[in-house]
Structures are given as structure tokens and as C-alpha cells.
């Protein structure tokens, strides 16, 4: 499919969505469902307001810190888990547990321990992203071609060289996928903690507008979060592709 056709289709689907939304918003006369045009207007007002950007920064601060921490801890731990059965036996169970446990349920436990500031929001983002990053890195190492390890050993590669020249390059694609999935979960964590426990950032903004029965603004904030997520994910996807090309994985 050509780029032009792709974009045409995308625009058409967007137009259909907007049309249905507009019709529902006007037809259903429900207090908390604004029409598409109302939301769009509110969104334009919102992005002109400095308070919105402050709220967005507050949220993203936790996202940035939490995700960075998850990546810095998760990738090396995952590599170790993938390589060493002992490390896997030691931590595998908890990683699986963390992956399937609804992290939201842990929030009430975390808040008393870490307070309602940046620390607890960062911790929640970390917990959301950490397990998927770690498990992806572990599976990346396990999927590495054993023949390549044997080959490198036959040329007398040291342990360090095996990591540097075989395992890490081999793991790269899956590690990057894990980081992208982790970012998706981190974004979810960022909003969830603000909605559930710490009324700060964009989550806090949504709660406040809802409390004021200001549906268009509440929706506009949700829209902005969605926009940020889409933008971030597409940026990360591009970076991922670039990195893979740079490291010889794809042409």
C-alpha cells in the first residue's frame, strides 16, 4: 500500500470516529459525554494554558524516572536471568508474579511506604514497566543461537567477549521490543497512580475536571494523554528501527 493511501485510510477512519462521537454527544444529551467538537475546542484551550503543561511535566517526570529506572535495572537483570539458571531460579518466580499481578492493587500498599510525592509515582511507573522489560531481556538471551556461542568459544573468546560480541548483539532486537512494551506499560502506570491515589499531574487534572462536571475539559486531558502515548510510541518505534539498522540487524 502506498503512503498516500495509508494516510487517506487513516484520515477516513478518524473522520468516521469523530462523526459517531459527535452524533452520540449531541444525541444522547448525557451530562458527562461531550461532543467531539466541544472536546476539540476544550483541547485547543487546554494546550494554550500553562497549567496544563505544568501538570503534564509533573506526570512525565515520574514516567521518565520510573521508566529509566526500570530499564537500567530490568535489562541487566534480564540478561543475567537469561544466562544463569541460578539467577533465574532465584528471581524468576517473582518476575512472573510481577508480570501477572495487577500493579494497581499494590498502589495502596506503596503509598503509605513512599508517601504521596514523586517517589511513589515513580515507583508505580517502575513496577508497571519493570517485569516486561526484564522478562523480554531474559528471553532475548535464551533465544541466542547456541552455535554462535560455540563458534566464539572455538576462537578462544573470553567471557567478556562472548557477552560483548555475541550475547548482547544477539539479544538486541528483543531487548528493544521489551523496552517498547515497557514504555507502554509505564504510560499506563503514570496515569493509573494519579487517578487512584496521588491526584497530581494529568491524572489529577482529569479528576478535578470530572469533579467540576466539566466533561469537555476532562475529555480533552484524556485526549492529550492519548496523543502523548501515540507520539511517544511512534518515536520509540522509529528509534528502535534505526538502532537495529545501525547494528546490522535489518537493511
Amino acid at each position, binding site marked *: 500500500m502506498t503512503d498516500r493511501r495509508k494516510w487517506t485510510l487513516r484520515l477516513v477512519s478518524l473522520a468516521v470516529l469523530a462523526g459517531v462521537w459527535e452524533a452520540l454527544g449531541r444525541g444522547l444529551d448525557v451530562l458527562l459525554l461531550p461532543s467531539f467538537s466541544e472536546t476539540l475546542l476544550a483541547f485547543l484551550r487546554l494546550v494554550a494554558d500553562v497549567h496544563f503543561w505544568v501538570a503534564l511535566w509533573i506526570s512525565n517526570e515520574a514516567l521518565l524516572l520510573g521508566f529509566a529506572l526500570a530499564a537500567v535495572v530490568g535489562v541487566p537483570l534480564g540478561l543475567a536471568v537469561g544466562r544463569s539458571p541460578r539467577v533465574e531460579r532465584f528471581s524468576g518466580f517473582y518476575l512472573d508474579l510481577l508480570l501477572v499481578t495487577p500493579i494497581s492493587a499494590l498502589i495502596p500498599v506503596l503509598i503509605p511506604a513512599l508517601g504521596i510525592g514523586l517517589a511513589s509515582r515513580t515507583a508505580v511507573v517502575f513496577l508497571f514497566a519493570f517485569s516486561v522489560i526484564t522478562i523480554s531481556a531474559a528471553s532475548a538471551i535464551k533465544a541466542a*543461537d547456541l*552455535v*554462535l556461542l*560455540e*563458534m*566464539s*568459544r*572455538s*576462537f*578462544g*573468546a*573470553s567471557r567478556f*567477549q562472548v557477552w560483548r*560480541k*555475541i550475547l548482547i*548483539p*544477539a539479544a*538486541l532486537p528483543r531487548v528493544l521490543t521489551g523496552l517498547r512494551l515497557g514504555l507502554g506499560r509505564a504510560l499506563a502506570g503514570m496515569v493509573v497512580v494519579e487517578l487512584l491515589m496521588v491526584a497530581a499531574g494529568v491524572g489529577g487534572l482529569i479528576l478535578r475536571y470530572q469533579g467540576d462536571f466539566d466533561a469537555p475539559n476532562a475529555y480533552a486531558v484524556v485526549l492529550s494523554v492519548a496523543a502523548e502515548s501515540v507520539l511517544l510510541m511512534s518515536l520509540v518505534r522509529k528509534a528502535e528501527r534505526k538502532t537495529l539498522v545501525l*547494528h*546490522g*540487524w535489518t*537493511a
Partner: protein
Amino acid sequence: MIEIQGCVKTYRSKHGDGIAALGGVDLTIKDHEFVCLLGPSGCGKTTLLKIVAGLTSADAGQVLIGGRPVEGPGPDRSVVFQNFALLPWADVFSNVQFGLEMRGVHPSLRRERALHWIQSVGLSGFESRFPRELSGGMQQRVGLARALAVDPQILLMDEPFTSVDSQTRRLLQDDLVALHQKERKTVMFVTHSMDEAVRLADRVVLLTERPGRVLERLDVPLPRPRPAEIRKCPEFSELTEYLWSRIQTMQPDLRSRMSERPEEELDK
């Protein structure tokens, strides 16, 4: 000189029952000799090669190279792998210089040696191509160049031409014959093709079904250099026929298994 003395190897499965791969192999390979290990799949010939390579150890017995026991991989040996074992993320040049890099050879010398061997295997102009852009035959040429670039005395080749089509296989054999003529490395070459064994080897060593033992050592008195036409010599077909008759004396289930490979074993 490679001296293989009483090598036994049993693989343990998870349930504790062992699979005996090698049942006591004795074999001596002289310097500059080209020896083909021939036998059915699963007869332990690859295991034997890996023991000589130092990639796995024997349960009993030992391998001496130049009188010293093998305790691991060493710079005197290079392995050429069945499935090429190329780094998929690295181009031809990086793959060929890999062994030199592992051994800490200076980058400029590395470059010179890698380019020399890329040229020798006929891949000039492909230095910056990736394995995924090459045919199977070209990929194995990269594997061969990588093995030779470190200038080993012994070349250990594990069914290196099994993963390519039969025309390419013949071309690779031609090139290996020419190369061996020039370099005179000691070669231990694992194959299950009688044709290939007779074409390449100074001596064919026939292994039995699992657990592998030496069934027979057969000198190949064909003169060198051996052009491809040597297959038309009566001696050539006599030798392959003889090997086939020896293989047929092995167990009947083996016979049926060997005849499942008509293209590789009987066609030639």
C-alpha cells in the same frame, strides 16, 4: 599430529539414561593429512570433532595434539560449522575477522588478513554484505575464510557442505581441494557422503552406528591434485562402492536410513 586415544562420550538425558555417542575411538591423524570421518547421522562423528576442537570433553580417553592433551579450544585449530555459524548482524568482513579479533590481533593486521582470505575464497566485493544477502554456498565460504584467517594448523570441518544444494556442494569441494593443495593444513572433515569423502580425503575413517567406533580406515590412493573429473576414474567408483558395501554390513535399520538420502549418497 592428532592422536585420539580411547575416546568415550555418553550424553545424559534429563531422566538419567545415557545416550552413548562414542564407544572408544582410537585414531591418529598425521600432519598435513586430510581425513574424512564417514558414518551415518548420529554416529558420534560430530561429537568426536568437537572433542578434538576442545568444545566438549570426553568421558574417558584423551586427545593429544603435538603430544599435548587437548583441554579446550586453541589457536592451533579452527572449526567450520555445518550451519555456518555466522553473526547475522555483522557483514562479511566483520565475520571473517572475528577469530582474529577474539585473539587480539592488531586491527590493521586483522584487516589485511581478512581481506586476503575474503579474496581467496572468491568473495571480493562482498565485504560489506550481510549473511542474509548471501547464498548458502557463499555463507560457507565466509565460514571457511574465518577459519583460515587465524592460520590454524588444523582445520576441523563439521559437515560443512551439508546445508547447501548439490551443485554448490561440488563447487565448494573443488575449492577446498585447490585450497588444500596450496595450504596443506591437517584436516578432519566430517561427512556422511561417500562421494565427498573419497573426493577429498587422503584417508577415510568409517565409523559404526552409535556408539561410534572405528569400523575401518581406508587409504584413498587417488593422486593429487584431484580435479572434479576424478569421479570418472574406475578407482573412484571402486572406492565409493567398497565404502557402500561396508556400510551395508551395518545394521539393517541403518541401511534403510542411508537409502533415504539418495541424492547425497547414491546419486553421485
